[in-house]
């Protein structure tokens, strides 16, 4: 289960220098996946079903990386939270550091957006659109062929200079400081109450429920993997949850939370949600591997999965125009979305986490579209500045030519999002979709009716469409225009506008390198 199965994995030859072992030098292959940096020992190839992979001796997830710094032109280091600093020497140190920096930034942007409430998210998006945040780039082109020359010529390394280090930008800085203080307090209040409930449960405070949970877990683990029913498990959890909610609401241990939290305590919807999370963590998570095996054994699901893979491949071949996707959305860079969609194929530890991931997928669609419109506006602005400058010698008077109104809201209704979702889901070639669907829809909290469950429904309906939407019939009924269009295809990732971020530049400009035709049309 490595991340190397998907996405754009890059490998670089480096020498790792271990500061604790008298600067012991070790030749390594540094592998940059979509979620982590990995040190790999050369000559340790392991066979997987796909291409052979080097074994990773150390994995540094992007989320754990707090800083990437370069020193001179051939040294860089990675600072890891709760770990030491990793020092490397490599010919293309700048390029490698740039690549890691970019992916770490992307990961953090996504993490912050997923974490945020609607208001926080809109704040992040705004600053994203203003260009204060960097656009993550996931174009499939070979980094060895690009970037380097530009970085080196634009800013030649002055060798013995102090290392120009850049902090990995995190949204929790200036952006989140703007967050309404009261709201933050509520948020922290909810979090701490949530944590307190988890602790109380683990500490055996709600003894009836925790004993029943243990018994339930033991009973299921004794069962034959071939006969486990997720439906039965879910209804057992529902029963258990009801008694846990009663136990929590009648408990007096939570009296120490005053004011606001008192109200929360009386909010049975909140308590019910936490209770569900607790039970998912304590029952579903330990059994996860087991449940997954039992799903893989179900022949009807295996059959459906084949049907899905077949249909999805057919649908992925279609022209984007056949989905009824608005023209303005056709030419957008969707690498971030397909990447987050691919992760759907790996079941997370609990259904709640999987639903959070589905919200993340939906948000990444919106984020991508926002970013694209920002780039378009930026480009227009720059063009008009250039045009003005060439017409007269006077500098453009107002730099505020830019934020011209663009009405995105109208374009992001379900009329657009669902076709786009289906199109991207088929393009992403997500594995195991049918099993994941079974797992998340049967085991998630059935009383949930918020944003999470909306985006779960979007996912479920997209899968349903791919399974039973009769792809052949639709492709026969395609419009004459689409039929005439020559099947000129480019891979999805090589999107119209690619963006590069200058590592050395404090004010990291978003640079539009090219912006031409659409993805497929």
């Amino acid at each position, binding site marked *: 289960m490595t991340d190397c199965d998907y996405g754009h994995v890059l490998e670089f030859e480096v020498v790792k220098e271990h500061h604790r072992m008298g600067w012991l030098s070790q030749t390594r292959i540094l592998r940059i996946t979509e979620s982590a940096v990995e040190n790999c020992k050369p000559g340790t190839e392991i066979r997987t079903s796909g291409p052979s992979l080097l074994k990773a001796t150390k994995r540094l997830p992007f989320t754990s990386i707090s800083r990437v710094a370069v020193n001179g032109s051939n040294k860089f280091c990675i600072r890891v939270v709760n770990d030491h600093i990793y020092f490397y020497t490599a010919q293309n140190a700048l390029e490698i550091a740039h690549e890691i920096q970019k992916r770490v930034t992307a990961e953090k942007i996504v993490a912050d957006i997923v974490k945020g409430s609607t*208001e926080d998210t*809109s704040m992040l998006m705004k600053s994203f659109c203003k260009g204060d945040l960097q656009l993550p780039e996931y174009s499939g082109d070979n980094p060895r062929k690009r970037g380097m020359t530009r970085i080196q010529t634009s800013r030649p390394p002055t060798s013995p200079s102090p290392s120009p280090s850049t902090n990995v930008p995190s949204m929790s800085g200036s952006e989140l400081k703007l967050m309404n203080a009261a709201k933050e307090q509520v948020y922290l209040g*909810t979090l701490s109450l949530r944590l307190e409930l988890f602790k109380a449960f683990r500490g055996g405070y709600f003894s009836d429920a925790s004993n029943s949970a243990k018994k339930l877990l033991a009973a299921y683990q004794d069962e034959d993997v071939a006969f486990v029913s997720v439906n039965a498990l879910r209804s057992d959890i*529902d029963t258990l949850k009801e008694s846990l909610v009663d136990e929590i609401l009648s408990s007096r241990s939570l009296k120490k939370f005053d004011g606001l939290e008192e109200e929360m305590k009386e909010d049975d919807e909140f308590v019910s949600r936490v209770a569900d999370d607790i039970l998912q963590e304590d029952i579903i998570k330990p059994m996860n591997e087991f449940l997954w095996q039992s799903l893989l054994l179900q022949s009807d699901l295996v059959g459906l999965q084949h*049907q899905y893979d077949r249909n999805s491949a057919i649908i992925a071949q279609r022209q984007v125009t056949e989905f009824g996707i608005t023209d303005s959305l056709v030419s957008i860079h969707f690498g971030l979305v397909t990447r987050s969609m691919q992760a759907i194929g790996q079941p997370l530890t609990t259904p709640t986490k999987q639903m959070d991931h589905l919200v993340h997928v939906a948000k990444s*669609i919106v984020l991508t579209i926002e970013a694209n419109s920002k780039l378009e506006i930026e480009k227009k602005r720059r063009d008009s500045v250039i045009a003005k400058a060439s017409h007269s010698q006077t500098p453009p008077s107002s730099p505020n030519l830019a934020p011209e*109104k663009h009405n995105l*809201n*109208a374009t992001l209704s*379900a009329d657009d999002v669902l076709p786009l979702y289906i199109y991207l889901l088929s393009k992403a070639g997500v594995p195991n979709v049918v099993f994941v669907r079974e797992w998340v829809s049967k085991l998630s909290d059935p009383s949930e009716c918020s944003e999470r469950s909306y985006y779960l429904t979007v996912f479920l309906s997209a899968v349903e469409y791919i399974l039973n939407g009769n792809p052949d019939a639709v492709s026969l009924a395609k419009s004459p225009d689409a039929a005439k269009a020559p099947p000129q295809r480019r891979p999805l990732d090589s999107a119209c506008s690619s963006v590069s971020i200058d590592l050395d530049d404090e004010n990291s400009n978003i640079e539009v390198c090219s912006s031409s035709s659409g993805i497929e049309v």
Partner: protein
Amino acid sequence: MASASPTRAKDIPAKIVVLGESAVGKSSLALRFVRRDFIPNQEATIGASFLSRSVSLVDESPPVTIKFEIWDTAGQERYRALAPMYYRGAAGALVVYDITSADSLRKAESWIGELRRNADPQTVVVLVGNKCDLESMRQVSIQQGQDLAEKEELLFYETSAKDGTNVDALFTNLGKTLLSRGVIASGVDRRSTMSRNLQPPGSRTPKSEQQKRCDC
């Protein structure tokens, strides 16, 4: 959870699904309702397909706050079969047509029929004629809308998402109807109401059960 406000404890959630042909203004209607107090150039959002807004009904006794959770659906014909997944468990359904398109009213009629056959009978259905600011292009008279609503015993509104006409009235009245018919309830009754709205876990995905049988 971050969206919680101190009054959240008393909010009653109500799932509202929005149905209708594409381009009749389903999402604009929801946006107009949700963004009412927002500054006009509020553009950054996470899309318009799921929106929510809490509304206090002060003249109820005791006063209650309903949290409308608005689910937008894709209106294109080819995605129609997916709609039941969206309106399942909904407290209310807005069936939207465009007063400048007679065809969209016929589509609305068929949506109403489908809801009658498949949706929870408790679901409160509102017929909405949108774009009433485009009087000069009107193809559907108010009378036609009213007649249909009366025949089917639905709430009826003509609205304009563009200038805001009747949008708040529509949701306020829908909220009151949901309360008076007991589709949603405040306080202690809530949990029982919520469970009433939900199918038992076993029947949650009847569709996929059917597929399984077909696939043998």
